[in-house]
C-alpha cells in the first residue's frame, strides 16, 4: 500500500500510523541477505597462481644463495641449518622450497601458528633459483615430474585415497578445515597440481609426509585428478555453500529456511488491513 492509499483511507477513520505491512518482510529479507552475503564473502577463498621451470646451473644456484641470504637466512640461518626461529632446510629438497615460496607461505610475515598463503613474494625464476640453492645443500624431494600433474589419472582411486588419507583434515570436497590452536588445513581449490604434489611429498608445516612408499607417484596423480575433477564439475546438489558440510548447510537452513517459515507464519496469523 502506498502513501496515497493511506491518505485515501484516513477520511474513514482508519488507523494510519502503522508501518507498511511489507516493511517487516522487507526488513527480514534485507537482514537475511546481508548475513548470507557476508557469510559467502568470508568463505570465499583466494587462490595463487604460480609455475616454475627447472634449469639447474651454477649461476642459478649462486643467484639462489644471494636471495636466500637476503630473505631467508634471518630465520633459517646463513648455512640453512636452522635457528631457534626456523627449522633446518638441509635435505628438504627443491619441492619444499617451491611449495613454500611458490604459494607465498614463505617468507613468513610474522611468527604465527601457521604460515598463511599470500601472493608469492618472488618471481618464478627467483623461486627456481632458491629451490636449486636449497636442493644443492643436500639431496631431498625434487620438483615433481610433469607427467604426474596432468590430472588425467583414475579419479575413483584418487577419491578413495583422498578420503582415507586427506579428507579428515582437508574435508571430503577439499574445502579445508580447522585444526588446533589457530592452525588449519587450507582449501585445495585452485591450488596448482604441482603444489598439491609437493605438499604431499614434503609435509609442509603440520601436514604429515606422504612419501612415495606410502602414496606412489601414480597415487598422487590420481588424488590430483580427483581434486581437479570436483573442481571442474558442478555439484549435482546445487549450491556448494563452501562445501563445509553440515555446519554451513545447517546454518543456511536455520537462517533462510526457518526465517522463511517464521515470515510465512507471521503473515498467516496477521489480520488483514
Amino acid at each position, binding site marked *: *500500500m502506498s502513501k496515497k*492509499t493511506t491518505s*485515501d*483511507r484516513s477520511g*474513514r477513520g*482508519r488507523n494510519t500510523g502503522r508501518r507498511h505491512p511489507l516493511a517487516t518482510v522487507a526488513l527480514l529479507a534485507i537482514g537475511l541477505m546481508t548475513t548470507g552475503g557476508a557469510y559467502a564473502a568470508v568463505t570465499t577463498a583466494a587462490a595463487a597462481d604460480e609455475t616454475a621451470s627447472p634449469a639447474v646451473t651454477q649461476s642459478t644456484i649462486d643467484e639462489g644463495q644471494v636471495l636466500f641470504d637476503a630473505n631467508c637466512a634471518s630465520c633459517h640461518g646463513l648455512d640453512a641449518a636452522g635457528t631457534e626461529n626456523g627449522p633446518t632446510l638441509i635435505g628438504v629438497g627443491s619441492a619444499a622450497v617451491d611449495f613454500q615460496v611458490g604459494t607465498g607461505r614463505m617468507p613468513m610475515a610474522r611468527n604465527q601458528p601457521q604460515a598463511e598463503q599470500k601472493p608469492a613474494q618472488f618471481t618464478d625464476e627467483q623461486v627456481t633459483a632458491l629451490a636449486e640453492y636449497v636442493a644443492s645443500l643436500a639431496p631431498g624431494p625434487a620438483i615433481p615430474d610433469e607427467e604426474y600433474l596432468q590430472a588425467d589419472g583414475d579419479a575413483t582411486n584418487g577419491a*578413495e*585415497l583422498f578420503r*582415507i*588419507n586427506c579428507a*579428515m*583434515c582437508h574435508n571430503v570436497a577439499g574445502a579445508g*578445515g580447522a*585444526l*588446533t590452536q589457530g*592452525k588449519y*588445513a587450507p582449501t585445495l581449490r585452485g591450488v596448482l597440481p604441482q603444489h598439491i604434489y609437493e605438499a604431499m611429498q614434503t*609435509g609442509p*608445516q*603440520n*601436514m*604429515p*609426509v*606422504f*612419501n612415495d*612408499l*606410502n602414496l606412489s607417484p601414480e597415487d598422487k596423480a590420481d588424488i590430483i585428478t580427483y581434486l581437479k575433477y570436483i573442481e571442474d*564439475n*558442478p*555439484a*549435482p*546438489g*546445487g549450491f556448494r555453500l563452501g562445501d563445509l558440510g553440515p555446519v554451513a548447510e545447517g546454518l543456511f537452513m536455520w537462517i533462510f529456511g526457518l526465517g522463511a517459515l517464521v515470515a510465512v507464519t507471521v*503473515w*498467516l496469523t496477521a*489480520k*488483514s*488491513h
Partner: protein
Amino acid sequence: MAQHDDASTPGSSIERHTESSPGTAVVTADAAQNPGFPPHEPRVTDVDPKADKKAERQVTTLFFLSLVGSIFAVAAYIAFPIVPGDLGSVRLNTALVGTGIALALLGIGFGTVHWAKALMRDTELVEQRHPTRGTEETRAKAVEVFTLGNQESGIGRRALIRNSLIGAAAVAPLPAVALFRDLAPAEDPNALLKHTLWEEGVRLTRDPDGSPIRAADVTIGSVFHVIPEGIREEEEYLEEKAKAAVLLVRLNPGDLNELPERASWSYDGIVAYSKICTHVGCPVALYEQRTHHLLCPCHQSEFDIANHAAVIFGPAARPLPQLPIAVDDEGYLIAQSDFTEPVGPSFWERERA
C-alpha cells in the same frame, strides 16, 4: 448493610472502609469480566471497491502463476533432460523442475491464504461447545446393549469359555517375543567389543589396498592409515575395520616420551595407535606432525602422540589404545599382540573380565 452505614460505631466505619478502600481487600465485584469482542474493523477491501478488485486480481494472478509453474516444470523436464554422466545436467534439471513445482504449489498456497484474509467474510463468531454427556435415553440404551450381549453370548455365565479365551489371548503374543528376541546379536557383544583382528604376527597393511608396510617406508613425519592383513577377506569387513583401524606415525625417537613398560611397543620412533576415539568412536586422524597432536574432528578431543596418546583437551576420557608393534625378518611391520585394552568408547561391561 444499610443499617450499618447509618451507624457511627468504629466497627462499622472500618467495615465501610474495607468495602471502599482500593487495592487492599478482595472485593467480589472486581471479578474478571468478559471483555467481549474488540470493535470490528472493516478491511480496506470491505470499504473500498477498488481495493476489493485489486485483491481479487492479486489472488487470480497467484493462481495463474501456479498454473504457469506447473506447465513450466513439465516443459523444463522435457527440454532439459538428465544426460547420463553429465552432473551439470542433473543440477540444471533439478533446479528448473524444482522452481516450477515450487511456483505451482506456492502460487496455490499464497493465493488461497490471500483470498481468505482479504476477501472472505471476516466477522468474528462465537460457536458454543457441545455438552459431552449423552442424554439419559442414550445412556440407558448403551447399558441395555451390554446386558443383552452378556446374556446372548453367555460370557458372564460360561466361566470356562471366558477364562480359556483370556488365557489364549495372553499367550498369543509369545511367538513375536521369540522372533524379535533373535534380532539381538547372536554372539556375546562383550567379547566382540574386546577383541579385534590384530594378533601376534599380523602384518600392518595400507588402507585400502592391503599392501604390507616396511619399517623403512615410514619416514619421520609420515602418517600411514593401517588395517590388519587379511581384513579384506573378512565377511564383516566394515565391522572389523571399525575396531581394528590404526594410525601409524614415525616421530623423531628423541621426541617420544615412552613409559619403560611400553618401550618395546614401538620401533625406532614408529608408533601405532587405535584410530577409534575413546569418546564416542569417531575416527581420530587429524595428525599434526610438528606438535605430535592428534585431533578428533567430532568433539575436538586432542591426544598427544609423543606421550602415549594422552588426552590433552576435549571430552575423551582415556588415551587411545596403543598397538604393540615389531618388525619381522623380512622388514615388515607386524603386531606383537591384539590391543591390550578394548578400543573405542566406554561400555558397561568394559572393566569386567
